[in-house]
Each structure stands twice: as C-alpha cells, then as structure tokens.
C-alpha cells in the first residue's frame, strides 16, 4: 500500500478537525475493511485517523430502555458482553457470526456501519432493531442511514460515536454464510420491537433493507405461515457467480421463516 500520515487523536473533536484539515484522510476503527482495501491498492488516503485512543466511544451500557454501544466496541466485545446477552441476545449472536474470531477481536460496530458493505451483518442488525446512530453532529435513525451500495447518510467530517438499540421483546438473526468470504450471501434479522415487527435483510441487495410486506404480515400474525407466501422481488437484488438474484430472493423468505420459527 501507499504510505500515509498516521494520527491518533485523543478525542472525537480532534478526529473531526483532522478530517477537516486533510481532504484525503480516512478514519480507521478496527481496520478490518480499510486495511485490506489499502493493501489491494483500491484506495490511497493521505492520512489515516485512528480512533483507537479515544476513550469514551467504547463499551456497552444501558440507558433506560436502550442499550448504548460505543462505536469502537469490537464484535467480540458485543458478542461476549453480559448486558447484550441478557437484553438483546439476537444482537450478541449476530456479532458472533461476523467474520472469524480474529477479525471479531478488531472489527468494530462503528467501522462496519460507516462502511456499509452490502454483505455485512450489522446493517441488518441495526436496521432490524430500529437502532439510532449517534454521531458527533446528530442522531440518525437506521432507517435513514443506509442509502445504497457502500453509501450512508454520514456527511463529510461526521463520525459515529455510538449506536443506540431499543431493547426489543425478542430478536433473532439467520445468516447464509458465503463459503469463501464469510460475508452474508443473505442475512435476515427479525425483531419484535415495541413499534412492531422488523425484518431487516442484508447481503441480498445493494444495501440493507426492510422487508415491509413481511413486517406487516408478522405484526398481524407472528407465525411462519404468515410469511410463507411472501416473495421478495428478485429484480433489484444482487446477482453474481456465487448466488443469483432468484436464489437470494428465495433465501430471504427461507431465513425469515427460520428466524420466526426460532421464537
């Protein structure tokens, strides 16, 4: 990879200033996506701003009826955290299915969501739980966050500091793992939230989306039968050598049913 200037700001404000000062700078959290990208020479930032030394954007705590997860919390930490396991076990399970154990020791929720890989797991995890992204500038609902292929609502200079998860009644994540990359060919998170059932899908389309027809059906009748006949339109789904869009459309329904059946 190309060389770059390396910064370890001590606060989010300092990180934002650095982003402002260097046009071609990139933020780094775990580096599990960024470093491979740099190694393959697909990007060559002038500056890397490492968020690892910022103290108050890690960890899990409860705030009323929400769980707040700091942006720099690793997947392993979310997976093993007692609060997450107690209150949102579906999320703990999802985090434990990301990548592999070594990757989970470094990759973070903030980094994963800011990158918005169409096959990452957290997009379904945040969308499915009706989470809210807290940045250094504002709050963004998950529904408004994932805009397209690797595209989020984050503005230049905006940094995720944490993610707030309303504690659901129940949630469950089903993933069909890509045999080579470990990413989600399709991943479906079903959650019974206080505002109804959410069905969030990753891997199938250019970005994570909610399967609204399924949500309506399940809110009326939370059963496998209720979504049996609901077909996802394959037209907008990803199509590649590993999985056709028809296959993905089909798998969304299969995994959604399996998630519901796990209740």
């Amino acid at each position: 990879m190309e060389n770059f200037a390396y910064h370890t700001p001590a606060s989010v404000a300092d990180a934002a200033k650095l982003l402002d000062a260097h046009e071609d700078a990139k933020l780094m959290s775990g580096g599990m996506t960024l470093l491979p990208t740099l190694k393959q020479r697909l990007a060559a930032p002038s500056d890397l701003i490492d968020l690892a030394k910022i103290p108050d954007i890690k960890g899990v705590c409860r705030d009323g009826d929400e769980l707040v997860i700091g942006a720099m919390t690793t997947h392993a930490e979310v997976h093993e955290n007692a609060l997450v396991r107690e209150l949102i076990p579906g999320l703990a399970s999802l985090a434990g299915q990301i990548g592999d154990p070594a990757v989970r020791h470094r990759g973070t929720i903030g980094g994963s969501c800011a990158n918005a890989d169409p096959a990452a797991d957290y997009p379904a995890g945040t969308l499915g739980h009706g989470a809210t992204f807290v940045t250094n500038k504002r709050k963004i609902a998950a529904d408004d966050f994932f805009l397209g292929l690797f595209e989020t609502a984050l503005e230049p200079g905006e940094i995720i500091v944490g993610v707030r998860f309303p504690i659901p009644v129940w949630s469950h994540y089903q993933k069909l793992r890509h045999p080579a990359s470990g990413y989600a060919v399709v991943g479906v998170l079903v959650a019974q939230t206080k505002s109804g059932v959410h069905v969030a899908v990753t891997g199938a389309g250019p970005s994570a989306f909610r399967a609204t027809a399924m949500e309506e059906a399940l809110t009326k009748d939370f059963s496998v039968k209720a979504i049996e006949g609901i077909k996802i339109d394959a037209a907008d789904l990803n199509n590649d050598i590993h999985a056709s869009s028809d296959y993905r459309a089909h798998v969304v329904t299969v995994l959604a049913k399996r998630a519901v059946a796990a209740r």
Partner: protein
Amino acid sequence: MGQFGIGQPVRRKEDVRLLTGKGQYTDDVNFDGQTWAAFVRSPQAHAKILSIDTSAAKAAPGVVGVFTGSDMKADGVGTLITDVEFKDLAGKDMFRPKRDFMTIDRVRFVGEIVAVVLADTQAQAKAAAELVMVDYDGLPAVGSTAFAASPDSPVIWEEHGSNVGIHWENRPEAEIDVHMAKAKTRVTIDIVNNRVVPNPMEPRCAVAKWENGELTMYAPTQGGRRIQQGIAKIVMNLPADKVRIISPDVGGGFGIRGKLYPELGVVAWATRKINRPVKWRGDRSETFVSDYHGRDQINHAELGLDANGRVVALKVRTIVNCGAYFAENGPRLPINGGGRIIPGVYDIENFYFSVRPVLSNTVPTDTYRGAGRPEANFLMERLMDAAADATGLARDEIRRRNVIKPEQFPYRTQMGMLIDSGDFIGNMDMAMKAADWAGFEARRAESAKRGKLRGIGLSNFVEPSGGRPTEEMRIAVSPEGKATVYAGTHSHGQGHETVWAQLLESFLGIPFENVTLVQGDTKIMPKEAAGTFGSRSSWMGGVGLQRSAKRIVEKGTKIAANLMQAEPEKVSFDAGVFRAGTSSVTLAEVAKASYEPKNLPEGMEPGLDESYFLKRDPEEFNYPNGTHVIEVEVDPDLGKIEMLNYIAVDDCGKVLNPFIVHGQVYGGVAQGIGQAMTEMTVYDDEGQLVTGSFMDYGMPRAEHLSMIDALFNEVPCKTNDLGVKGAGEAGACGAPGAFVSAVCDALKDFGIRHIDMPMTPDRVWATIQKAKAGKAA
C-alpha cells in the same frame, strides 16, 4: 518390531520445529544486499504487445533494473516447452507451443509475465512495476473449455490454426462400436470436471544470488534436481553443478510446486544480470495466476452393458483445458496418467477414449494431486451410477458385478497396465459395513422428519502411482553409529523425517532418534534424485533406502567379519548387531571401525556410506485403491450440503506409519470435497479470472468437513519388496465420486441424476427448482 519401527504410528520428528516457529520457508531467507523483484503481469487475457516502455519505471526511486523477455532473449535464454509428445492415429504430432520466460509479442492469459522490475525494496519494486507502460492491442479471448474446442473460437496460437493440440485416440473408435452395438443397455453422460486452483498455503517465492560463478536459489519445490538442470541448460547456459536449488521447508506442493516456472527462470537470470541477490515474494493473488491450475475437463462418455449388468463397452471423449500453454505434463494427464485408468477397478475389455487437449486464455493446468487419475475415477463412478439407474440394479450391486475379481490378479488392463493386486470387493464390503450402508434408509427417514434430504454415496477408485521411474537414496553412518539419510525424495508435509527414520530403525537397528534427514539441496542430494510427487516416495524412497541399507549391511558384514576374525559367510545381521558364533559387534562399532583403514579388508574404502540408484520399469506402477463412502444431508430450501460422515477404506499396501498415512487420506479427501462442493474457478468472457482470491475462491474450511474414518485394507504390493502402494492422492480420487453420488441420492426424488461440481448451494437449489418445474410441466 519396536515402537519406532515400520507400521508404527510414530509421532513426527519435524513437528517440534514447525510448532515452535523454527521452520525455515523460502520467504524466511534473505541475502545481504538483496534487491526485490516485482513482476509486471498482463491484465488482458489475449493481446498483441505493441510496445513496452520501461523508461518511467527505470527512473523510479530505488530501481536497479527493468527487464523484458527481449532482454532475456538477447542474452540467449531459451524457451520452455512441454515434456510430452503424442501422435494421433494418423501419425500426426501434437502441437507443442514454446513459452518464453517473459512473453515478448503476445499475452495469452491474465497474469502472464511481461516484464520484471528490480529495486532496493519490495515497495519500490511494486510501485515501479505500475509505471511500466505496455501498449496492448486486445484480441478476442476464450476462457471456456467447450468454446475453446469449437471451430468458432478465437484461436490463440495462430501458427497451429486451432486451439486443439491433438485429437488423440487410443484406437479406432469403430473397433469398440462393434461391441457397443451388442449392448442391451446403453447409458450416456456429459459431465464436467471443474478447474481448481491448488493453492498450497505458502505463496510462491524465490531468493537467488550469483556468487563465484554459481547460482544459488531458494524456492519451494518438490525436489529441485530437474529445476536445477532446466535452469542451468535453458536459462543460464551453465553446467548443472553451477546451479544450486535449495528447498528448505516447503508449505505444501500437491504436485504443482516441482515445476520450472517462468518466475524461477527470471529470478535466476536477473541475479546474474545485475550481479546482486534477487528476492521475489509472490502474494496470494499472484499465486492464483501463476501456479498451475488443476483438472478442467469435459467428458462425454457412453457405457454399454449386457443383460446381467456387465459392461461390454466403454467410450469416452475428453476435452481438457490446458490453458495458454501446454505445461510440463499438461496433455499427459488425460491421455496417459489418467486416461488409461478410466476403467478403474472394473473388468472392462473394450475401451475407446479420445482426448482433445485445448489451449485457451487461462492459466496452464498441470499435475494437481492425482494428476488425471481423480478425473478418470470420477468419470467411471458417475457412469456406474448412471448404469445403476438404467438397469435398476443397486449402485453397489452393479459395481460388484463388474469389479476385477481376486482370481484375476495380476490383471492386465486393456491399456496394458498390470495391476498387481487388490481386493476390490473386500474394500466395498469393509466400507459399506463401517458406514452401516444397510441401515441407511432409517437414517434417511429421520432426516426427512427434520426437513432434510439425506443421501449416501460410494466411490471405488484405483490409481497408478509411482511417478518417475528412478530415484536415488543414500545412507551415511557416522563413527558414532548415527545415520544421515540423503534423500532424493522431498518431504513437504508427508513426514519423511519421521518415516525414513522408522525405516532405518527397522532395517539397520539404528535408533529412531539417531537418524537425520537431509533433503532439498541439489548440491547435497544424491545425483539421481527425482523428488516427491505421484505418491511415489514410500516406494521409490522406501525401497531405495531398503537397498542402500542392504549395501550398508553387506559392507558392514565384511568389516565385522574382519573385526571378529570370522568368515564373512558366517556373519549374520539383525537389529543392529553382527554375529558370528558367540562373537558379536554392533553396527555402531563397525561404523567406528570403518573409518580406520587398519580395520578394513584389503582394498576397501573407509566409511559406511552407501547409495542406491533405484530403477523400475517405467510402465510398472503400484496401484493404491479403495472404496469411499460418504453420507450427506441436503437442506433443500438453501441447497446447502452438510457432510455427516465419511468412511475411507484404502489399500495403500503395507502401511509404514498409519498416523501419517491417515493424514494423507484426510488431506486428499478434503481436496476432493473442496473440488466437489466449494471450489469454483470462474473465467469471464474476457478471460478475467473472477475468482482470483480467497474472497471468491472457496477453499474448504473446517466447518465444511466432518471427521473422516480412515480404514486400511492392506494388500501388500507384489512389485516392490516393501509391499507399499502410494497414499498421497487416494483421497482426491475417492472423494468427488462419493460426494456427488451421495448428493444425487439425497435428491433422487426430484429425478436429479447429476449435478456438475462444484455443488454450491446456488447451483443445487437451481437444479432442484428446474427439476420441480420439469415435473410440474
């Protein structure tokens, strides 16, 4: 036999070193003042090279030199060409394209080397490589095997006018048509044996220096003698003893590392050219486009059977995609190595096969674990399953009716191969019993309750092993009575450090811990060293050691006789001790004495150091064989296949170390399952390798496999004194057929008879949908 002798599950000597990070692989080697090489590789699959502008690269920081194929040619460097020659039935020779180490006028596959940059650091070399400006004039490319064989395809070697190197046939087809016409039942299948990328875990690399008129190069190989000779003759124009190839620890070979790759030639030439050491550290993406690939055949086959389900005729037509060039072995695999054994364990007299090796804009293919034999075995087993369907006979029954029976050994095949021994019925019995084949239907029903489709499959195989017909092994006994084995074979995971020590303890009574292995250095290895490939080492290396040991004993007997003042004829040797009457003297004492001329008979050379150059009939192989049974569960909604269990019954002849041979079976099976289930190699219409990294290429992981129960049906080989048969490639031969058979068994209610490998979830599901639609129609 002691606990370290032949047949014992001795734990490996090499493990402590490798487990504590003390292995030495080629990338661990560095020379002072070394430059780094970065290759400029073609991004296009098929193009004319109009010009190569190296000026910007030459001016880049740290760059020591930038060279192209023209520079090498100007220095008199020769070309590579396939080792093999074939004639068709009309006597016409196979086309044999020449290969420059760095291509000059034309690129023929993505990844082909166009230039090399040498710089002070690897980063500088890579950066400068991006500044080499190549003006390509793109040509239509062909990556598909079927299309490459068709007359409409772009032709990638114009001088030949066709992509088809030869239309080789074993005999006139009409001779077999006569028999096929008499068949009561005829089955036809069209199947693919998919291309795989071998991917040993060590990416390829090389480090070389030119010093005092000699080239020394470290590189991962499978025994460097032929590479030494090739580099000396073709690249350096030197006598072979001025070239030294050293392969220290090697991170996997699987048949494709013992090759004279262009990168090795370029690194060798460059180090002399710039008179500085050169190091090339390839990365995985580079390995994907520079290591030879494996398999890639399309087979059209027809089996004719009589009223009793006995095969009366077999016809096979194979197209094999050899890539942009014929590699060292290339067409040999389907024509010779594999093709001849297509009838496998079955008694088939009337056999026609034709092979069309085609050239295409893809990486060349060569000997990957099994080298043509897995393809042959797979084909025959799919035919047997098809025949079972057509005749209504059970899959095992139709095989039982056709296997070569015990009383038929030694069995001369229609292609002239002499199978010395085997217990094919016994293999099947053992495997089916261990797999509880009889109780399967109950398990199928239980899986169905959980919404899963369970299937069981079996595969027989036999595969001629032995590789090259010569080898040399040397044993040197020190004055302390310890031994060093100088091997012509090369261990790159097979545990020779352990097994050769076991052999010496058995043959000479030298304690296991006192035997050291020296291998992998062309300066030190025996002159006629050949290497390890083709599952040959237990035979060629083992018997070579046995005969060297015999020479040690012969010489030792004479010295012992001298020491004991006895007649040599009265001296016997056993378990490390020479005895004559009541006198005895140990091998260690004899070894010590051998270094002092006063102890020796008149005219005898001092020392106890003997080699043996083993030659065998090139047509005499040994025949590892077996039956593998696998049980799988298919999730019909996802198309996902789960491996439940695996029984491997292998006849590897006499087993030298069951622990290690089991490991070879497990590893071979994993590669076979990988080919059958997860390993998809995709070239698009422009000849781009779409699956060029581990992100897209599905290497089997632990989660894809179950435990494998490896059993032995030991039928000693009759054609070597040790009774050994090869073991390394058996798993790759047995697994694919069993796997596909099991999955089709699971899906039989859909009427699915075959799915081409790899059976990815997407492909399995799509096949099920198509079958359902077909039924509904």
